[in-house]
């Protein structure tokens, strides 16, 4: 598992766990970031700028601070892929 930040542009991954405050989690969920959802890192901007992530057909800009709190498992990394939500619980403990 790695953070959204560590993905390469164009790479597909599954969201495993979102940490951070409830407020931010709601904000991310409202825009489609749920555990188990597939996302694509669409764009990385210069130096310290935000990432653009494609999720459920829409594009969302995410600052790097928040992106580092979203843990993902890149497609093809099958060990952690199976029960996304369950393993997220495991990680939470």
């Amino acid at each position, binding site marked *: 598992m790695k953070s959204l930040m560590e993905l390469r542009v164009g790479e597909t991954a599954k969201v495993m766990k979102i940490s951070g405050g409830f407020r931010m989690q709601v904000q991310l969920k*409202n825009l*489609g970031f749920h555990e188990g959802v597939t996302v694509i890192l669409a764009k990385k901007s210069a*130096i310290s*700028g935000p990432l*653009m992530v494609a999720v459920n057909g829409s594009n969302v800009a995410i*600052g790097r*601070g928040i992106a580092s709190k979203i843990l993902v498992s890149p497609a093809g990394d099958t060990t952690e892929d199976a029960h996304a939500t369950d393993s997220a619980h495991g990680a939470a403990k």
Partner: protein
Amino acid sequence: MQRILLTGQPNSGKSTFFNSLTGYKALTGNFPGATVSYQIGSLNLMGTLYSIVDLPGAYSLIPSDKAEFETKKFIINEQDSTIVNVVDASVMSRSLEMTIELIELQRPIVVALNMVDSARKKGILIDAKKLAQLLDAPVVETIANHGKGTLDVIRATHGKHIPANATTLRYQRDVENEIVELAEKLPEDLVASFHVPGRTVAIRLLENDPFYVKELERFNGSLLEVVSECQQRLEERHGRPANFVIAAERHNLAMSIFEQVTSFERTKPTLESQLDTIILHPFWGYLILLTVFYLFFTAVFKTGSYFEGFILSQFEALGKLLGGWMSQGLGLLITNGFVQGLGAGLGIAIPYIIPFLVGLSFLEDTGYMARIAFLADNVMHRIGLHGKAVIPFVLGYGCSVPAVMAARNLETRRDQVVAASLSVLVPCSARTVIIFGLVGFYLGPVYAIGLYILNVFVIGALGRIAAMLDPRITPGLVLEIPAYHMPSLKNVAAKTWIRLKDFFTVVIPFLIIGTIALGLLEYYHLDTTVNAALSPLTVTILGLPKAVGTTLIFGIFKKELSLMMLFQALGTNTITDVMTIQQIVTFSVFTVFYIPCISTIAVLYRETGWKNTLGVAFGTTGLAVLLAVTARLVMGIVL
């Protein structure tokens, strides 16, 4: 009359939908006791009159800020209305969660499946019939920016059907049991007071929805314990807090509906993603941004100056005519003040503001504004804010009033206050008139651009200071980057008109009063008293002619008055005859930075409270003195 409430997520095309139905006749309403506003318009369709309310966009019915709280209260209280839920078909999976929340309210509802054309372009095909079956609510496909289907939505509200099937109204068994159990324990008259079913109240309480929790507390505080017992049971069984359990339930429900009604088609990479490769490019993106801004402001000033001359000459002629008709005295003075004030408003403010507002709606509706936020994010982080905060600053170049209001969309109180307070320093179109009319005209464009650059640096420095004083880290950017859209002219026009109305109702009266008041000051020779009172500042500290005192006072009413009054107060049309270059620069620097105009102060007070507003008023004036004195000294050395 039938009442219709338009609800939907941001970027769902809800306002376009509203504008296509009601056009320009919309009025702005305020929720009682709150600053949150909504649009209300009427529609006459085949003899039936509809009153349509466009509520602020919200991602969910769980309020996370004051605006959402008021919106929610409004929906709950409007029990006799039909809800129209505008859904962006291309991001339906996420919108459905809110649709389910609305269905849970058990009111008549119609779903407008909007932007079906752009969904199709993305390869997303939705079976509207099946969706209607699953939701047990009418689903109408619409393309609101072409006005397609919007009237069918209104016709569909006739059925007043309340969704009743189990698909959307039953969760997984153990969660549902917990909900039902809690619902049974809730006192009947409390539930009745909400006009929504007990099940919905129970769900909301389990989610800690502040709206219901507050009411429950007021009704009977001990019931909160019953709620938290249920929450604990859910948490033990599911290994996460109850509000997450409920959110997950609703999400799963939405996904299951989504999967049953959607089919996908392979599409070629859209033009859009290719466009973003260039527009969000780390180098070309910024070059495009600068070009867009340059073209935008050039276009605004070209159009503005073209009309300004024409309108002003009409009012001048009218003034001369009046002078011929009426005898000298107070009556003429007031009439003349009225005509001149109106002329100043229509002749100077409007010609620049209309093109600015049109351009602004264009930037918003095409989707470019969100991309500006994306590009600006890392620069804004340097001043302790994030990308979304760039919007108040961009708006600030037009007018500080919408700029301050736009700061409301930021997440934290700190960010809202900092962005609102700093955005008033951005030279608005009125101050731009001063910069161009005085500095640009008499000293050349290099000085004018220099003043803009100085302004950017000053704001940047203040932002850094604010970040150092209050090191709470800004939560960072989370912003939907909407698809590119061809803006519809109707929508752009309606948006411009709604914003322009504020100018007619707030700004022009102030301009008229200001002009008349200055006339009166002169008539009773009070201007010399004001000038004398201000002379320690104007003459001693800033080294300006004594006569500029009154102009600075009038600049508080409306910034461009400073320039117009300057001509009047000095009794000349050629400033360089009476002021040196050093004085012109000092005066301009001072007027650009000093106390915001009275309309801005009013809205700043409303948005950030009186303490902050006083701080801004005195702070900016202090800053203006400091910078103007520096400018005076520097110009003294240079010249």
